[in-house]
């Protein structure tokens, strides 16, 4: 493995390989792995970015009707969810910090807290969507068809964007559960932490998207 083991480390020097002769096992390169994760996060960003572009263009076209739509959304629920997600981001960051200090137990508890937050977020979201559905406000509903075009497009964007975001919350939650198992099994340790860091990065991205979704949908009324 000496050849491709030429992974420059932080200082740019090649790191000797832990498994000489085993070609198919790549050496542990945490910087490379994080770089890969960040590049992946860029694609997620642009994926939501495309929807944000749509939001902005429709806002230009339908302006005040978006405000009408926004007034129907509950600032309290949205705000509560913002706090929940911010807190979950904090606990996830702390979980990693705890791992760096070899405090596995604390880290696991913090990850539990993160998952509780994720579930809490989804429960609030479910109530919110449920409320909209109960009012007959969902795609293809008769009530929706009676609204102005601006409000229709506002709610379409609302369902699609918060829907995609909720999907990411679910994926992120599952990833955290998975990484917690790996911590328990001893596969993620203080010395091989990058898997957990990457899951953490993903979770923070979920938070980032919500930081923009919340004011754009709930606060322009």
């Amino acid at each position: 493995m000496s050849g491709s083991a030429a992974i420059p480390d932080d200082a740019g020097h090649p790191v000797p390989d832990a498994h000489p002769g085993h070609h198919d096992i790549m050496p542990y390169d945490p910087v490379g792995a994080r770089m890969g994760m960040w590049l992946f996060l860029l694609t997620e960003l642009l994926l939501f970015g495309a929807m944000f572009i749509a939001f902005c263009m429709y806002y230009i076209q339908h302006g005040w009707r978006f405000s009408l739509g926004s007034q129907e959304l509950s600032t309290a629920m949205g705000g509560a969810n913002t706090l929940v997600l911010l807190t979950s981001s904090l606990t996830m960051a702390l979980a990693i910090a705890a791992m760096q200090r070899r405090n596995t137990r604390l880290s696991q508890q913090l990850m539990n807290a993160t998952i509780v937050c994720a579930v809490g977020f989804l429960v609030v979201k479910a109530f919110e969507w449920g409320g909209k559905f109960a009012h007959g406000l969902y795609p293809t509903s008769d009530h929706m068809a009676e609204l102005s075009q601006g409000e229709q497009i506002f709610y379409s964007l609302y369902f699609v964007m918060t829907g995609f975001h909720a999907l990411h919350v679910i994926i992120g939650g599952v990833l955290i559960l998975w990484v917690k198992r790996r911590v328990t099994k001893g596969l993620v340790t203080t010395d091989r932490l990058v898997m957990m860091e990457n899951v953490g990065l993903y979770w923070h991205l979920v938070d980032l998207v919500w930081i923009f979704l919340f004011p754009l949908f709930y606060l322009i009324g």
Partner: protein
Amino acid sequence: MSSADTAPALPKLSYLNEQKGLKSWLTTVDHKRIGIMYLVMILIFFVVAMLLGLAMRLELLHSGKQFMEGTTYNTVMTLHGVIMIFLFIIPGIPAVFGNFFLPIMIGANDVLFPRLNLASWYFYMAGAVLALISVALGGVDTGWTFYVPYSGATDANLLIPLLAAFLLGWSSILTGINFVATVHRLRTPSMGWFDMPLFVWGLYATAWIAIIATPVVGITLVLVLIERFMGIGIFDAAKGGDPILFQHLFWIYSHPAVYVMVLPAMGVVSEIIPVFSRKRIFGYKFIAISSLLIAGIGSLVWAHHMNTSGMANWGRVLFSFLTFLVSVPSAVKVFNWLATLYKGSIKVDPPLLFAFAFLFLFSIGGFTGLTHASLSTDIHIHDTSYVVAHFHYTMFGGVGTMFFGAMYFWFPKMFGRMYKRSTAFVGITLFFIGFNCLYIPLFLAGLNGMPRRYADYLPEYASYHAWSTVGSWILAAGILTMCVNLLQGVRKGKPAGPNPWGGSTLDCDVPSPPPTHQFEHVPEMTHGPYDYHHHTTEEVTA
């Protein structure tokens, strides 16, 4: 593949035969084997799409209906486009030659994420299988651009082809992530950024576009699906949506995508020309940076595809101007290639002839591209067969030619054997004549107002179409000759040796075909990638 070890001069063990059996291929994480697997699939799909193209040309041989109804023709046209673009030309050079040569050229034993690399191939295959299933279900007739509202209104089954495009997008995103991270992390320590071969620069720029732009089109296609199957009208005019926004989001990816296709091809040209003129590439840094500039500016010009779409006049002016600017870095590349030939020692081998064919065809494609950048002329020729011809000159004449050029250049390295030189010349000549005969009449028809995507045409355009169809037959004969030559080469070509063309990049130091584990030691950069004088200077100093 394992028959390669029968010839005496070939290395006994190579990546081709160190492990045997289909399973060893399907589960491999070796970048070279993954490249070969892409090659096989991509060539198969190329032939399928080429046959579809021939069928379209045959339908258009005469005015009036020959053997296809409007919808059938539209379906064939869509399939030709979807397969050629998503399954052949976007993955083409990066997935096959990028996978194979990028790690070797930077002195690494594999890409940074080998398992992800295999996953990309499976994404590709999943997309391909879905595309085939959609054919079995009757195909789609929307054109490869899937424009709304038609894609929301057509009776055709849209779910599967859109999912296919989505998966293929993920395949190229993952490959892109892999390439960027690999170039950053796995360059052999003695290789600085400006010691990289230009092919690597091309791939690096391409990978960035794939990462940045592909998700935009991915989510856009998903939004079309949501609109169609869940009644959420993001682009539906009846629900306050704007069909033109779809075009923006679609072209934000799909215009840079043509640079995804063409940058690696330019990279191959930059490898071939110095090798066969035994001379260092002229203006290395300018070529390298122009790749990044093409990728950068190329991402800002998408809306020239929408010059007649009803978007705001000032938007059109802005995008026209930006489009003109992108021609500058392309021109820089062409001039530098020419200057490389100056005072060289040129031997016209088949790969160089491909590079010349590229220069000829791509220049025509590029120059006719200016007529699309120009506002008033574009309004006239937009959506006519002039566009079709321009597009094929850049994509097929440029990228397609260099796909085969790369094959003829690196074939000896990949398989350790040589193809027949004389047959190669016959193939290229037929290809070149057929190509021009096929597409030049389409330029003329377009200038006279022949719209594109027409299953039938008025009698006044008959002669153009007749010539064009004849050209398609010559072109097909050329491609057939080229492919047969290579297939025969794989089986019984003469052993090629490690450095048949006398190149100077790191891949010339490893045996042909390379062993699975190509570098036993960290390779040292003793000379630049185009330093053909290093032997003599070493001898002199010795």
